[in-house]
């Protein structure tokens, strides 16, 4: 295992310290357990947005803290949901009197820890709503599983709900918008090579030199099928088919197309993927109205990508376009 780290058990501590040093506009609690908050939190009268989860997905969530997006992010240990304490601390820190929305990726650990935190925050008089994100179509039959996972679509929920909160929507409205985004986004990912969790020191699964893994999550979990290596176009087709079938997306839809890198894949490859994905959507009569390409919801050094498609309407488009000012996503100010 070759990584730019020191002690494998200190990766999160040192990365959080690096985030604090690189982004002085944020207010980072650099002693564990960590909270990364907006410098101006709490914003009086505004609904606060808190998300969090295991570390290793950077820039998610800390890189999305700022004007127009999250008010605070709570990074847990690598791939391990944070405990309730820092979630409660973050909730209190961002409560400006209008209540707080928890954006939770659908993993048993995240759901349980945020649940406890919401109970504790409520006990302290803070109104909390929770939205569970489950955009990953790789997990097929949700009746017999822990349900679909929350993956790259989370970013889209955070951006759009964040814009709604920034314009002054009430807690119930912001939660409703977040749920609308979740209901309209579908994602699927794949890996060319697994990631290596620092303290594990070995790859999270084994892949042969000519094998790829389809339907991976963002925690180094193996995916839904292991197949022989294919050209990028075939991979894109394989990822898009279940995405388009599932919602289903239809001819005439306007969508946001998001091609996401898993952490170890360079941008040039993501553009190759984007090209094909846009082509396939066009061939279905689906109009790509907004785009995002980059490594935003990662899985340490995993090589691979995910594709997310969000069906837009005018209201969602306007919120997507609204100003955002965070370390990893920024426009309009």
């Amino acid at each position: 295992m070759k990584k730019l780290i020191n002690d494998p058990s200190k990766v999160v501590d040192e990365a959080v310290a690096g985030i604090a040093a690189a982004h002085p506009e944020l207010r980072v609690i650099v002693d564990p357990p960590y909270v990364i908050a907006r410098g101006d939190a709490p914003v009086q009268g505004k609904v606060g947005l808190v998300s969090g989860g295991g570390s290793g997905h950077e820039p998610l969530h800390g890189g999305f803290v700022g004007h127009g997006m999250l008010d605070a992010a709570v990074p847990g240990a690598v791939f391990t949901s944070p405990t309730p304490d820092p979630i409660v601390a973050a909730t209190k820190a961002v409560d400006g009197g209008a209540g707080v929305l928890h954006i939770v990726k659908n993993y048993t650990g995240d759901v349980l820890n945020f649940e406890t935190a919401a109970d504790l925050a409520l006990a302290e008089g803070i109104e909390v709503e929770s939205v569970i994100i489950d955009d990953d179509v790789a997990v097929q039959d949700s009746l017999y599983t822990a349900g679909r996972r929350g993956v790259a679509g989370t970013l889209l929920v955070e951006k759009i709900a964040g814009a709604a909160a920034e314009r002054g929507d009430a807690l119930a409205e912001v939660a409703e918008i977040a749920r609308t985004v979740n209901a309209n986004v579908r994602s699927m990912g794949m890996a060319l090579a697994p990631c290596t969790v620092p303290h594990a020191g070995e790859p999270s699964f084994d892949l042969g030199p000519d094998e790829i893994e389809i339907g991976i999550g963002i925690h180094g979990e193996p995916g839904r099928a292991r197949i022989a290596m294919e050209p990028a176009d075939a991979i894109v087709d394989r990822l898009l088919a279940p995405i388009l079938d599932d919602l289903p997306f239809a001819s005439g839809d306007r969508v946001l197309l998001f091609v996401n890198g898993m952490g170890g894949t360079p941008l040039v490859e993501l553009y190759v993927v984007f090209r094909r994905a846009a082509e396939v959507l066009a061939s279905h009569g689906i109009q790509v109205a907004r785009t995002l390409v980059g490594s935003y919801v990662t899985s340490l050094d995993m090589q691979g990508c995910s594709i997310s498609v969000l069906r837009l309407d005018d209201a969602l488009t306007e919120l997507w376009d609204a100003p955002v000012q965070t370390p990893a996503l920024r426009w309009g100010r």
Partner: protein
Amino acid sequence: MALDADWTRRWIELVADRVAERKAELSHLDRDIGDGDHGENLDRGFTAVRSRLADLDADATPGAILKLVATTLISTVGGASGPLYGTAFLKASMAAGDAETLDDRLADVLAAARDGIVARGKAEVGDKTMVDAWTPAVDAAAAAPDAVAALAAAADAAEAGAAATEPLVARKGRASYLGERAMGHRDPGSESTALILRAAAEA
């Protein structure tokens, strides 16, 4: 042997020792069908438990000790196992009340722990989770003639329950994402449950 406060401390310390020893093995089970951190998670939690136990009042009851374990796990473990084991120890501490020993209520304490896990995680036996170790253990303890026998029977049943998760397809937790690919692998949480209950029998 009385299942008093001293025993409770010995039990928890033995769990901490064994989790530290078997950390890599537990994470390895989790790597096969989860995300590879189960050993790390529990070791982080029980290391914290061990250091806080030292600060606890010398006259703390078994229930107070179990409560400390619960709150420490909840605030240090994270992941799925943190809230689940945390709830288990919390409900166990409530069932223990302020009794000096657990001898007369061991089966109830174990049942409360299991019920707490089920209440939070909604898993049934056969879903390939820690419940597959807890439920047979609770049943075996309830059928045992006394507390000491109950501990041994619970440990045996938990181990058998853990082994029995191997052929299963998972319906809860991360392993559920794998469908049939989870078959042939033991659930890590059921294995750590067996570790905890075996430590109870040997404490």
